[in-house]
């Protein structure tokens, strides 16, 4: 079985609050925020690695991003992926979900035949949730989003459980297919020292626009139907009243206010 896992390098969760809109220039102030593997993509990789262990699989990891994103592909190799690919080209910059999904789908096609593509259900920075299902659209394969459990695998007919309002959806899907996964699916393994040592010898493949053989108009900002036309800073400041006194007095004041609001 051949599995492709899509991963994204995102600003490290603890540092993301440093990225802000500059009120003067209305552009993003991106400081040197360290990159990390998007957390939900770790669950996607874990799903692939578990399938590799139980049934045997060849796991490729693919990411689109600037050259420093190589480090997160490397990290996935250290966790147990067999092949690592970074799609990187200046032309890919400024892509919206549609152009990103298109570019990744071309990368996935170039890896050869595959049975399964796994993605995290969303990224922590963009959070559109569109890339997974749109990759499936471009590859013309079926998709189930927000999978929390793989219930049954009978050759190429799988039964999966996915999230639904106050409940769940049981779905039958025929491979080759794409799944986007939630954090309930599994518990991602930690990096091991031996994994890191082994990954040192592995080479990350870099594919640019030429390698994918697609026209420049279809990728990056040019290939994106949506654009950010404006950025505004919002002043959502409320006039806060900080309760004074010792803890006891603060609790009394708060209870009085809750009582006045008629909710206790």
């Amino acid at each position, binding site marked *: 079985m051949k599995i492709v896992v899509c991963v994204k390098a995102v600003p490290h969760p603890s540092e993301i609050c440093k990225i802000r809109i500059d009120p003067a220039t209305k552009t993003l102030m991106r400081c040197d925020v360290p990159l990390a593997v998007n957390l939900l993509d770790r669950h996607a990789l874990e799903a692939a690695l578990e399938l590799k262990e139980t049934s045997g699989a060849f796991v490729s990891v693919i990411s689109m991003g600037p050259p420093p994103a190589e480090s997160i592909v490397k990290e996935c190799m250290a966790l147990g992926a067999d092949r690592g690919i970074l799609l990187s080209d200046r032309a890919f910059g400024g892509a919206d979900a549609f152009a990103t999904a298109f570019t990744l789908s071309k990368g996935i096609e170039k890896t050869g035949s595959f049975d399964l593509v796994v993605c995290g259900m969303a990224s922590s920075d963009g959070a559109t*949730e569109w890339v997974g299902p749109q990759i499936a659209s471009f590859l013309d394969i079926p998709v189930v989003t927000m999978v929390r459990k793989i219930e049954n695998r009978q050759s190429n007919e799988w039964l999966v459980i996915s999230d639904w309002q106050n409940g769940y*959806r049981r779905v039958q899907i025929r491979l080759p297919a794409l799944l986007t996964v939630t954090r309930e699916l599994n518990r991602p393994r930690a990096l091991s020292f031996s994994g890191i040592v082994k990954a040192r010898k592995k080479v990350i493949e870099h594919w640019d626009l030429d390698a994918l053989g697609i026209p420049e108009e279809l990728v990056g900002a040019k290939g994106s139907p949506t654009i950010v036309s404006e950025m505004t800073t919002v002043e959502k400041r409320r006039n806060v009243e900080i309760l004074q006194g010792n803890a006891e007095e603060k609790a009394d004041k708060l209870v009085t206010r809750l009582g006045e609001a008629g909710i206790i």
Partner: protein
Amino acid sequence: MNKGFGPVWVIAEQAGCEVEIVSLQLLGKARELADELGVACEAILLGRSLEESARKLTEAGADRVFLADDPALEFYQPEIYRDIICSLAHEHGPEIILAGSTFMGRELAPLVAARLATGLAAHCTGLRHDRNKNLEQLVPAYGGLLSIVCPEKRPQMATVARGVFKTPEPDSSRKGEIVLIPVPATAEARVRTLEVVRGSSSSIELEDAQVIIAGGAGACSPEGWETIRELARTMDAALGCTRPVVDEGWAFLDAMIGQSGKMVNPAVYLAIGISGEQQHMAGITGAKLMIAINNDPASPVFQQVDLGVVENFQEFVPLLIAKIKAYRQKSCLQP
């Protein structure tokens, strides 16, 4: 009717035998947008036994409702739902398609957008026309608001969560046309929903809650989360959280409040161990009284609430619980 623009559409949804509230809310907005363009406001509803819901969509503002009513469509079926919507779109050339940020909408909308080769804005908190009559789709990010437009392609597509727009007052005098869509016989689907199970949620739904207690990254410990749960029980409040709490496994995605989670409008919102990250705060702009408990006086959350308590919540909340119980006892004793 303006010949230059296509109609404004809503992909509506039925849950069980009731139309989803977000579908009605989207129709209210779609009606406004359609009137600004001088075009029709239309809804698409797929499922089984849809008559009642179709009437509600009409009362909420739809001039025309496309109905695909068939036992085979009882559950959301990705490929056939997508195919029906895309072929209707090819036929009628809508200007705008809106969908709810429901589990269905979040999977179906990107499939439709990819097939129609158009843009899709995610989880918008505002929609309006700009000078060029492009749909300006507002999305909170990075401490501000992004305006997303799709200038070249049509339709312009967006998902919006329940609670962003108000539910329109039903107008029972409104008359709308119902167009029955034949359900195409398809080749065997590659993906099939076998069942949808909706738990009878015993707890209060966040969207309906009058009082919400929300915990953040600062509450991510077994004792911390139990303390917050206890306060929610004491106050009969719904329990919500921020993304890190879900990521760390203390709560399910259902409980996440924020731009990519639930949009809430409670009378009182009480934030505990929450730093005031934009993603989260964008979900609570409708709250009347906002309170924060945080041990860091410099936390940005204190600029975004009405009442602030600078205390360690682990010590303060048990005290608060005791005081609330005492307050209640006292008010019971009063004649």
